[in-house]
């Protein structure tokens, strides 16, 4: 489970940069981003509450894949590239993908990223590629994995050491980088975990709950600074 406190988010985009670095996301380039082809696995969406000077206020909505329990992207894939993993993640099997882009159309959160061109890593970017993560080819869909490589590693280390996972042991790149600590990751099924406690907050909500997509991402509503 991932909890994002919108009160804390400053829209600094550090999570986006961390995600690019961690997950070997190719940089699309300025003109491609202008076309709407940025490969952001996590987007920081900016919405204006007021644009009247001097009372200019914005809300920032960091939006990674919601890893829906009932994911609309999954059943529409003809080749089972988008499937549900046993631990509830919504996985994208790159090797199966043929690029129909149906999943992206059906994603209500528009968080799926398509490789319109083969990713490029201009020197020295290729030096910092993460060996735990594949580099995806042209013509396939990809998206946020909740840093599944970190989840697997932490779990295997715990297994080797013969112990249970500790709360806070798994930290995705975005949560690790977030300067104000707006993003928290943990086991939502453990009621004592930090995320479970945060999610119980009165401010907690999930995006588009009426769609019954059952996302494990909980947002904490932005409290108005004036009205409390």
């Amino acid at each position, binding site marked *: 489970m991932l909890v994002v406190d919108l009160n804390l988010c400053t829209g600094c985009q550090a999570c986006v940069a961390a995600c690019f670095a961690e997950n070997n996301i190719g940089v699309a380039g300025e003109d491609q981003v202008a076309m709407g082809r940025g490969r952001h696995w996590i987007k920081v969406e*900016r919405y204006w509450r007021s644009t009247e000077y001097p009372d200019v206020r914005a809300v920032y909505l960091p939006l990674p894949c919601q890893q829906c329990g009932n994911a609309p992207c999954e*059943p*529409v894939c003809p080749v089972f590239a988008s499937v549900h993993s046993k631990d509830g993640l919504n996985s994208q099997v790159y090797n199966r993908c043929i690029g129909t882009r149906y999943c*992206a159309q059906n994603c209500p959160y528009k968080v799926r*990223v*398509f490789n319109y061109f083969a990713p490029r890593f201009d020197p020295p970017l290729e030096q910092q590629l993460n060996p735990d993560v594949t580099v995806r080819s042209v013509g396939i*869909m990809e998206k946020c994995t909740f840093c599944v490589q970190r989840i697997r590693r932490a779990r295997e280390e715990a297994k080797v050491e013969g112990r249970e996972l500790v709360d806070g042991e798994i930290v995705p790149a975005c949560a690790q980088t977030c300067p104000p600590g707006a993003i928290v990751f943990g086991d939502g099924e453990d009621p004592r975990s930090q995320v479970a406690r945060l999610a119980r907050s009165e401010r907690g909500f999930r995006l588009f709950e009426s769609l019954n997509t059952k996302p494990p991402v909980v947002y904490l509503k932005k409290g108005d600074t004036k009205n409390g």
Partner: protein
Amino acid sequence: MADDARSGARGGHDPGSPSPEETARRLEAAGVRTTPAATEAELARLDRALDDQVFRSMSAISLRFVLVVLFLGGVVTLGAFAFGWQIYRGIGVTGLNRPVFWGFYITSFVFWIGISHSGTLVSAILRVLKVEWRRPLTRAAEAMTVFALMIGGLFPIIHLGRNWRFYWMIPIPNDRGLWPNFRSALMWDLLAILTYITASSLFLYFPLVPDLAAARDRSRGIRHKVYAVLSLGWRGTQQQWHRLHLGMRIFTVIVIPIAVSVHSIVSWDFGMTLVEGWRSTIFAPYFVIGAIYSGVAALISVLIVLRKATHLEDYLTVRHIDRMGKVLLAVAVIWFYFFWSGYLTDWYGGNAVARALQDLHTVGAMAPLFWAMIVVNMAVPFLFLWWRRVRTNMAAMLAISLLVNVGMWIERFLIVVTSPMRNSLSFDWGGYRPGWPEIAIVSATFAAFALLYVIFSKLLPLISTWEVKEGWRIDRWQREGVVELETDVPTLSEPGGAR
């Protein structure tokens, strides 16, 4: 259907009803003039004229033909080059982005599947209803379906990010032990189109067999050999005719629900999603009627061009176009009815995204397209097709039918491409501008459609000669009491006949 020739009248004349001579005498006494049934000699003359016309147009190759083939072939080659470029560089050479993941290709896919709809469906419905005037135009209509499907079926493959992996969708046992996902509407699509292209090709082929035999008997050399194989050793025995009729009867009945299911499934590609502007329960019938609309219009265009180009004006007549014009008018009204039902409910619901989408259509960036669609799909057919003067004017009908198809292409574009431009997260709204390969490939498919017809006209008879000949005889058989008149109302035995 020619089996009307055998369905009734097993025992010849009913002893209770008057004999043909008696009827003729009574009619004459009542001041009704009866035309005598055609004699065998007259029928033979008609047959010969038809054969001459149809089979001659197959053999003569003019300079104009060569030029047309070269031009169309050139456009198709450009499209093939564009597709190669797209594979080499990546699908990014298109104008697709996030959130508009589907563009010209899927628009054209829906469009061509729509065009494919009417040929087989019109032919099958006319056959089921035993409409006599269908006889000269079924072949051209059935061919239209096959060609449009051949083209439409390519688009989902062209559209893929990894086109070279398209066969992963085919349900065959493989080394991964993984079957495709039959819950995906795209898999339904694949199977529906596979079924439809098989059915419509065979629906074209079945009644073609006797004509292929006729072409075989008229040709020599390599052409003769090819026709001999294709005509399946057809000799025209009563047994073979019987089998053909039975096969056609099974096919005609089965092909109608297939045709309806195909476009329903195409609509469900959209209807099954959560995308505003797509998710709708009305989509299946709306798409089916839209498909029939564009298909009838395309059939009118095709018939007008064909009759002119191959000098078959005596068989593909102005009256055919006139009748198809009435059908087009009726379908236009039904289409608008479905369109309006969807539009009204979206507006009334007041959903913010639906409203944003409607604003985009009616006053936003897409307004020119939207209003053009309303004008050419609704206003033009509705204002003009009431008039017989218009329906019998070939230039006007060609213009209207082409305009309707322009409008239907726009309609599909507005549904497929513009709906994802608006969604619940206004941060992710977007636009779309097609890349040059998309324009080149879409143009190439229109050229390919024309090219297939041009080639077809030289290889296969454009008119089902045996069915027309059979039609000429039905009248006589009815007068002779060999075949029953298809009517439930008491008649003076047989005045008039089916012609």
